[in-house]
């Protein structure tokens, strides 16, 4: 049975491996594009190395190298938990090849195991990069011996395993709970959003239990880690095994993680068929009847509407694309209910930050959330095997691009503009600033839509079997999400510090003009590249 599971796992990995496609692809153009994608991903990996290594070295420089193992525990847990939570549903349940896989002579536990391990292997490079970069920074200030290296390496694998099992259990529970409702998709989406918001709030709950006074940021990180570790046993065991050379804690980490996985695979396999059958079942109670006719739309709007229906059809797609939107809506609601001062106080935990300091970076804050994902970075690839429909229709490829960009603008532009206006008014910004920020928000929204589209048409992939591969792990989405997230953070810092030399409003105006030019550039490139797909 193990041999068969290994064959299945190997086949599943090979079926989606870039290297396998690269090896067998004869089209040189496609090969060049894939190599470009690999280079792009390598750049992202480099960014992770710099970020994780830099963080670890900074802790050491500040005399807090002892806190690095705890941070590794927290970071690896959090990263793998969220990576898995948002995609476990798509990997474990109702996947396209479910019928084929389940018809194979394999036990259900083996199938659950191979689906999980595939996810595990896909996450592994990120965990190993973070872990290796952080041990490098740690090694500058602390003694590294064979024990610490062994514990660090094995601990990385175990922390990832524990976090992924935990996230998969929650995802499975949400999927199982969703099947109880008539509108399964909507129920699953609401439950997922509710859980995400709970996770975001958790940080403040933990902080509230460990930190009462205003302290330096680096101390806060330490206190936060300690607070999290109090509840997060695997991270605590990892810290103890590395820092205190505790054999017992190391054994606990390994045994509990593996046992946790075994238990998860065993229990899920008992209910696996039932959950999948319910998820894939068509509602029989739904009242059937003649469909109403729908009004006429332009070709661009018809494609935009199709995208809207596509977004609503998938819990994974909706949650991954709209989490930032939900957070902004909640923020605006909180501004109205509690007022800006209270919100700032909670967000910065008593640090001396005033609303006047927030004003110059309002567009960056809003865009950090709304622009954290864009449908255009995956909507072209999402056509998958249905791409023949658009290909055989009498429309230019530019119409498809326009339709998909238009939908993303419907989705994010109003919210980005309203978010900027609401936060500006709450912070008592001047009238011309409110207008400037609203315009800047609109431009950033257009930039996101065009930049995402450019990433997607540069690295299209129609050969997927599971939509989560496109939504979460495609080259296009990685090239959009990570650089944009880092750029927004850097931009925020630059605006704050640049504000000492130049008027912040001039800075925002400059940002608006630069992003407008970039949006125009990406739009033109998208149209040009889409014509060749």
């Amino acid at each position, binding site marked *: 049975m193990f041999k068969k599971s290994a064959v299945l796992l190997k086949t599943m990995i090979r079926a989606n491996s870039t290297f396998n496609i690269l090896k067998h692809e*004869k089209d040189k153009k496609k090969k060049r594009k894939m190599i470009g994608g690999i280079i792009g991903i390598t750049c992202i990996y480099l960014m992770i190395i710099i970020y994780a290594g830099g963080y670890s070295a900074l802790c050491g420089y500040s005399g807090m190298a002892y806190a690095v193992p705890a941070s590794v525990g927290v970071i690896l847990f959090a990263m793998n938990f969220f990576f898995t939570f948002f995609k476990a549903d798509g990997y474990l349940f109702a996947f396209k090849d479910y019928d084929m896989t389940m018809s194979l002579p394999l036990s259900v536990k083996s199938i659950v195991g191979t689906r999980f391990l595939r996810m595990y292997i896909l996450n592994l490079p990120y965990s190993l990069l973070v872990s290796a970069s952080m041990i490098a920074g740690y090694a500058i200030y602390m003694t590294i011996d064979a024990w610490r290296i062994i514990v660090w390496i094995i601990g990385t694998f175990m922390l990832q395993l524990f976090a992924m099992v935990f996230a998969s259990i929650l995802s499975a529970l949400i999927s199982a709970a969703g099947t109880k409702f008539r509108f399964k998709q909507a129920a699953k989406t609401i439950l997922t959003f509710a859980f995400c918001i709970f996770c975001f709030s958790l940080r403040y709950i933990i902080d509230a239990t460990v930190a009462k006074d205003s302290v330096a940021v680096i101390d806060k990180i330490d206190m936060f880690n300690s607070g999290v570790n109090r509840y997060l046993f695997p991270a605590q065991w990892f810290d103890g095994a590395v820092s205190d050379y505790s054999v017992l804690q190391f054994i606990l980490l390994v045994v509990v993680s593996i046992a946790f996985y075994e238990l998860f695979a065993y229990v899920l396999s008992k209910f696996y068929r039932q959950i999948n059958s319910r998820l894939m079942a*068509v509602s029989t109670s739904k009242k059937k009847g003649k469909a109403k*006719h729908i009004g006429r739309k332009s070709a661009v709007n018809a494609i935009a509407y199709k995208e809207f*229906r596509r977004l609503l059809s998938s819990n994974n797609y909706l949650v991954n694309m709209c989490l930032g939107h939900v957070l902004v809506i909640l923020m605006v609601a909180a501004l109205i209910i509690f007022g800006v001062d209270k919100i700032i106080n909670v967000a910065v935990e008593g640090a001396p930050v005033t609303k006047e300091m927030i004003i110059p970076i309002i567009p960056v804050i809003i865009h950090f959330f709304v622009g954290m994902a864009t449908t255009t970075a995956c909507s072209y690839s999402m056509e998958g095997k*249905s791409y023949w429909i658009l290909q055989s229709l009498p429309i230019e490829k530019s119409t498809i691009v326009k339709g998909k960009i238009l939908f993303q603008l419907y989705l994010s532009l109003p919210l980005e503009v309203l978010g900027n206006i609401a936060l500006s008014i709450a912070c008592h910004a001047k009238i011309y600033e409110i207008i400037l920020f609203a315009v800047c928000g609109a431009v950033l929204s257009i930039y996101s839509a065009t930049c995402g589209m450019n990433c997607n048409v540069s690295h299209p992939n129609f050969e997927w079997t599971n939509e989560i591969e496109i939504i979460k792990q495609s080259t296009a989405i990685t090239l959009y999400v990570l650089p944009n997230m880092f750029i927004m953070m850097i931009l925020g810092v630059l605006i704050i510090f640049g504000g000492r030399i130049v008027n912040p409003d001039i800075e925002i105006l400059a940002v608006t003009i630069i992003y407008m030019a970039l949006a125009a550039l990406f739009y033109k490139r998208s149209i040009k590249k889409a014509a060749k797909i």
Partner: protein
Amino acid sequence: MELLEIKNFSKSYGGDKKACDDVNITVSAGDIFGFIGHNGAGKSTTIKATVGVLDFEDGEIYIDGHSIKKEPIEAKKDMAYIPDNPDLYEHLTGMQYLNFIADIFDIDDVKRNGRIDKYAKMFEIENALGDLISSYSHGMRQKVAIISALIHEPKLLILDEPFVGLDPKAALTVKNIMHDMCNEGKAVFFSTHVLDVAEKLCNRVAIIKQGRIVITGDMEELLGDKSLEDLFMEVTEHV
């Protein structure tokens, strides 16, 4: 009047062997043209290149005088395509999908509603159009794909294995629609493995083997006293 002209079309997928080699086919107004060949003979490659799904370098393909390479939009306006296993947008209802296609072809409300009602009734799926396509059987998806192809009244209908998965009544409806299109001066070009159907339905035929057209012409002239099955076996075994 030629509604489809495939001239010296060749296609290879990167290797030395050509999937299609110097294919020449002409479909005129009023034709029901059958395109026959073994699995992997090059039927789907030819059809996909004809409808603009597949890129190609050698040869030219014209639909109602418009080059699919140079004027793809004009060419596609005059035709409709239904693949062998239509992957439709599963997240849309049948009605939403049909309206999507109607929007693309810019069909006004009165015409689209009339045609949707007419064909939905013919294929007996008027009560299912409000359901998601993901809940449809293969045959129902095929019916929706056929209705979507007819919604803009194309001059040329191109189908890849159109009868697979259709129930007998729906298959008969498709055949009747093909005849009606012919009588209206339009044309149908389709691939099939079902030789009996092709023999009864088509007035013209082409047989493809290993990417090359081995025989093409009027059905009656080519068959003489033979059946299409005999002819097919003869040309594919000996040519």
